[in-house]
């Protein structure tokens, strides 16, 4: 396995996709006995058995095409010379891949290709890494008899519009691999072949389009599929061919794509999706594939810094001084205010091992359970809801499961933007015939895109998820569509009856609720019938479910629906939270919540505590600590004085910015560990420079519960991996930590966490990934959960009554604001804004319906004032009917927008996850930034001054 850092060579290409099936076929290829799955092509059978049939138009990421005629073979008993890529194996078949006749044919084909290809191999950026070159050598081409005079395609202009790759049509052999990759792998269908015959040419959309202006989403599938230098990364042209490759895991979203980081020296040349990666199966998106330049960005802070007050400029200090100062401050504050005046926030962007150490430092070093994580503001309701109903705070399926789904219900998620690589998998299944129900206030791309159309789009009014789910359940129960046999066997029948009686009430009918939800009752009934009757039903959801005052209720309502229809415990079904950040699942697993130790064991569980107390040699507080919003409340009350924040930017990402700022300003020691001087650092007293995912070892756990290795590709520019910095702090606080490698931290996690009992770095290296639980009961991990029974025993139905949010529209604030994400940016944008991704999304825009815009005299591009009872900001608008009348929408990727100045402090009843998705607002024309924005900018600029760097480029956001 090529998981370790190894000398660069391209990943093996078997020519055509793998076929899975029980039946095998045995054939003979060049005298070798070969057994493969029935349905496999001769080309693939030859490749997997060590052979190599020349090919150009075939690659194993896309279906066979049969156009290049280079892969011809001879087969006993068959006439002519069939193409091996389109010929399937059969029992007893006898194949000859190298004969005089084939050599001549192949040489003739290659001769034609080369006659219209520039012969600049020595200076070509793909030199020595080019399939055309390899195949010309393989067929023994020595001469081109046609000469190079006459008509050709060698002088076509290059398209350099895309910031990450170039398109050089002169080098194109029109094999269509890029077009097919865009169609089949990505599912965007942005590329086509225009013209015919000699004039055939790859085109991004219309002939007037460039790659940048086209519908291309820059996923890189075409670049990866290209056998020549026609579509190639600019970085390869600039830096040269990679010399080493290291398999690691992407640090963007919760899909957890694995990549080969291909490097030259200590410089990353490119990130190429790893074909053996089980989360992404060789695919990528624009963020993971291309947007890693932030790691080397000039604004990255590499020296530790301290200051006595946030009004002072930063003072660069040595690591020793920074750590000693930090420990001294923490000890002072503990002595003066008590241990509960301290706390910490772990990061869903950091590794499991780093997260585990931060919560260990807080619990064992600070002596308090005041530790929380950014999942508080995204998926804490998932943890609560799924643990209550199923017994485990995690999704039930692996991503492969979607291949067996018949009906896919997407609620409160926008996977084509937020989880693009999984969205491509989902779209592939939809193109093959699965049905689709989308429940979302916006008409997301999934509702209607090339070759995809939702059977039902239920454009609900923001804040009415529970009402819609109750109505779906009402139809399923009252029309007798529930799978009662499943429920009787797997769930508590009495609880089911209680729930079924409740949802059957008239007040939960689609007709009764239509005025509340805005969803036409007939559509809702149709969707319910489709979900219940359509075969394997799978539910995928995102933050549009959790970030509501009834986030936890919505998660439980989803679980109820899955149980009532028998859609749990096998492939193709399940409840699947699409996690936001790369390691949200892991951060939650690692005991980052104030009430839970790793593996979701409550701190009041004496048995669990005893394990940790024995291992750590300290007493663990049996009472829960403070959640993030409660820490901030306690700070403004003067009771909470110090916080250690690793890899989070709560000032930008958390709701009610003014309250967050007031809380931070009231603390005496705010320690921020990050790559950049983020917004939160404006209020920090200690800044500890962090390391990127390219500079550390560890693991991330994705939305499938898949634990995957993160491997160091280069030395940390700041001097330390993040876990080492936490260890330095712990040692300075007097703890006897002596980890020499994250593998030792994982060993400790495995010792203390039953669901991780069988996890180790050695196993991860050997197997690529493991899906927890990995323990005595499931030694090889658990791709699908609750197969024979729920983790909690019987599945629990919980009555989830619709309780309207207190955030209501009225004369002052008549519109509802909801928030979301866009493909090219990630979270608060700290990383992606420092890459060329800004060409696609340079600023946050407010989407507003044409009617609402017209009523206010607003047109696309205008500046508007967006105000709620919490605050106001300004941004520009785009007028679109993607949003319904009465609803406006924006992203929060840019700090200047300050979208969270608008959001309120309402939150989920069970977990305090903020209600980001519903804010009553007013939109009015504006001339420019608000006073608050101007003051904020001035304060941020003052706060970011560094002594000795005055006049130099400010490391500002």
């Amino acid at each position: 396995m090529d998981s370790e850092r190894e000398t660069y060579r391209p990943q093996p290409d078997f020519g055509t996709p793998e076929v899975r099936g029980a039946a095998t076929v045995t054939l003979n290829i060049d005298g070798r006995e070969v057994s493969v799955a029935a349905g496999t092509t001769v080309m693939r059978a030859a490749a997997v058995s060590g052979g190599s049939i020349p090919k150009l138009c075939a690659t194993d990421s896309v279906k066979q095409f049969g156009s290049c005629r280079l892969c011809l073979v001879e087969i006993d008993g068959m006439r002519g010379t069939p193409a091996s890529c389109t010929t399937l194996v059969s029992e007893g078949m006898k194949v000859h891949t190298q004969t005089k006749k084939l050599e001549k044919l192949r040489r003739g084909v290659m001769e034609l290709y080369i006659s219209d290809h520039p012969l600049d191999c020595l200076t070509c950026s793909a030199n020595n890494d080019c399939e055309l070159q390899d195949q010309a050598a393989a067929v023994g081409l020595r001469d081109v008899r046609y000469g190079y005079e006459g008509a050709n395609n060698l002088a076509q202009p290059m398209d350099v519009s895309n910031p990450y790759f170039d398109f050089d049509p002169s080098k194109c052999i029109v094999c269509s691999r890029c077009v097919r990759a865009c169609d089949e792998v990505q599912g965007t269908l942005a590329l086509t072949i225009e013209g015919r015959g000699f004039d055939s040419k790859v085109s991004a959309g219309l002939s007037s389009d460039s790659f940048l202006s086209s519908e291309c989403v820059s996923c890189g599938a075409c670049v990866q599929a290209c056998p020549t230098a026609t579509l190639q990364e600019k970085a390869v042209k600039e830096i040269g061919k990679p010399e080493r490759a290291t398999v690691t895991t992407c640090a963007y979203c919760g899909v957890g794509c694995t990549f080969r980081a291909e490097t030259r020296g200590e410089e990353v040349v490119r990130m190429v999706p790893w074909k053996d990666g089980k989360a992404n199966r060789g695919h990528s998106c624009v963020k993971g594939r291309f947007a890693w330049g932030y790691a080397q960005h000039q604004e990255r802070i590499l020296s530790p810094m301290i200051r006595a007050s946030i009004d002072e400029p930063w003072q660069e200090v040595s690591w020793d001084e920074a750590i000693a100062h930090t420990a001294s401050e923490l000890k002072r504050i503990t002595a003066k205010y008590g241990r509960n005046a301290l706390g910490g926030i772990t990061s869903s962007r950091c590794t499991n091992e780093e997260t585990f150490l931060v919560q260990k430092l807080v619990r064992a070093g600070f002596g308090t359970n005041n530790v929380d994580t950014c999942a508080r503001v995204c998926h804490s309701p998932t943890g609560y809801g799924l643990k209550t109903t199923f017994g485990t705070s995690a999704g039930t399926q692996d991503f492969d499961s979607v291949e067996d789904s018949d009906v896919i219900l997407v609620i409160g998620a926008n996977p084509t933007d937020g989880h693009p690589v999984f969205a491509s998998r989902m779209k592939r299944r939809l193109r093959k015939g699965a049905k689709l129900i989308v429940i979302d206030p916006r008409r997301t791309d999934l509702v209607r895109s090339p070759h995809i159309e939702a059977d039902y789009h239920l454009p609900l009014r923001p804040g009415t998820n529970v009402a819609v789910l109750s109505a779906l359940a009402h139809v399923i129960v009252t029309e007798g569509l529930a799978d009662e046999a499943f429920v009787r066997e797997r769930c508590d029948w009495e609880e089911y009856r209680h729930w079924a009686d409740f949802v059957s009430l008239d007040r939960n009918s689609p007709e009764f609720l239509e005025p509340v939800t805005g969803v036409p009752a007939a559509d809702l009934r149709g969707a319910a019938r489709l979900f219940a009757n359509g075969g394997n039903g799978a539910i995928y959801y995102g933050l549009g479910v959790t970030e509501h005052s009834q986030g936890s209720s919505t998660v439980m309502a989803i679980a109820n629906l899955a149980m009532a229809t028998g859609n749990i415990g096998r492939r193709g079904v399940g409840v699947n939270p699409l996690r936001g950040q790369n390691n949200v699942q892991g951060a939650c697993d690692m005991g980052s919540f104030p009430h839970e130790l790793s593996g979701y064991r409550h701190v009041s569980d004496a048995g669990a505590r005893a394990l940790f107390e024995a291992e750590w040699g300290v007493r663990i507080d049996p009472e829960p600590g403070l959640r993030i919003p409660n820490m901030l409340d306690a700070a403004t009350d003067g009771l909470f004085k110090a916080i250690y924040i690793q890899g989070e930017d709560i000032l930008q990402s958390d709701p009610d910015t003014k309250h967050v700022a007031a809380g931070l300003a009231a603390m005496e020691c705010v320690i921020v560990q990050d790559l950049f001087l983020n917004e939160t650092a404006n209020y920090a007293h200690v800044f500890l420079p962090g390391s990127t995912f390219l500079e550390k070892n560890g693991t991330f756990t994705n939305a499938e519960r898949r634990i995957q290795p993160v491997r160091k590709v280069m030395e940390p520019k700041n001097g330390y991996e993040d876990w080492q910095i936490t260890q330095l702090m712990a040692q300075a606080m007097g703890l006897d930590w002596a980890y020499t490698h994250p593998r030792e931290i994982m060993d400790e996690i495995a010792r203390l966490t039953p669901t991780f009992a069988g996890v180790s770095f050695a196993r991860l290296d050997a197997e690529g990934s493991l899906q927890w639980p990995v323990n005595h009961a499931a030694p090889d991990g658990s791709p699908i959960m609750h197969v024979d029974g729920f983790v909690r025993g019987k599945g629990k139905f919980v009555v989830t009554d619709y309780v309207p949010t207190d955030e209501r529209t009225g004369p002052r604030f008549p519109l509802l604001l909801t928030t979301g994400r866009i493909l090219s940016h990630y979270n608060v944008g700290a990383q992606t804004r420092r890459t060329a991704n800004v060409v696609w999304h340079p600023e946050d825009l407010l989407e507003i319906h044409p009617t609402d815009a017209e009523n206010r005299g607003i047109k696309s591009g205008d500046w508007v004032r967006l105000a709620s009872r919490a605050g106001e900001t300004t941004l520009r608008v785009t007028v679109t009917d993607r949003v319904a009348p009465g609803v406006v929408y924006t992203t929060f990727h840019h700090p200047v927008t300050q979208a969270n100045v608008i959001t309120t402090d309402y939150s989920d009843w069970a977990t305090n996850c903020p209600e980001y998705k519903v804010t009553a607002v007013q939109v009015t024309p504006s001339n420019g930034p608000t006073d608050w924005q101007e003051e904020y900018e001035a304060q941020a600029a003052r706060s970011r001054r560094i002594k000795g760097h005055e006049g130099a480029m400010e490391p500002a956001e």
Partner: protein
Amino acid sequence: MSAHTLEKLIYMANQIARNVTHEPDPVAMIADHVHAFWSPRMKDDVFAALGGPEGAALDPVARAALERLAAHAD
């Protein structure tokens, strides 16, 4: 503790109450929830308000749960 923080705690308790009305034993459910998820200081603060004027804003079911929990805490 500020009035703002206490107001929020009371709001949180009332919000839990509104979301568990269909539980077989809402009082026990609320008490369990607060016990499991609130820090000692949050609990103490809201217990202290039970007898005061701010506590009047508590939903009766939430109040019953907090009173039960407060009695148990003693």
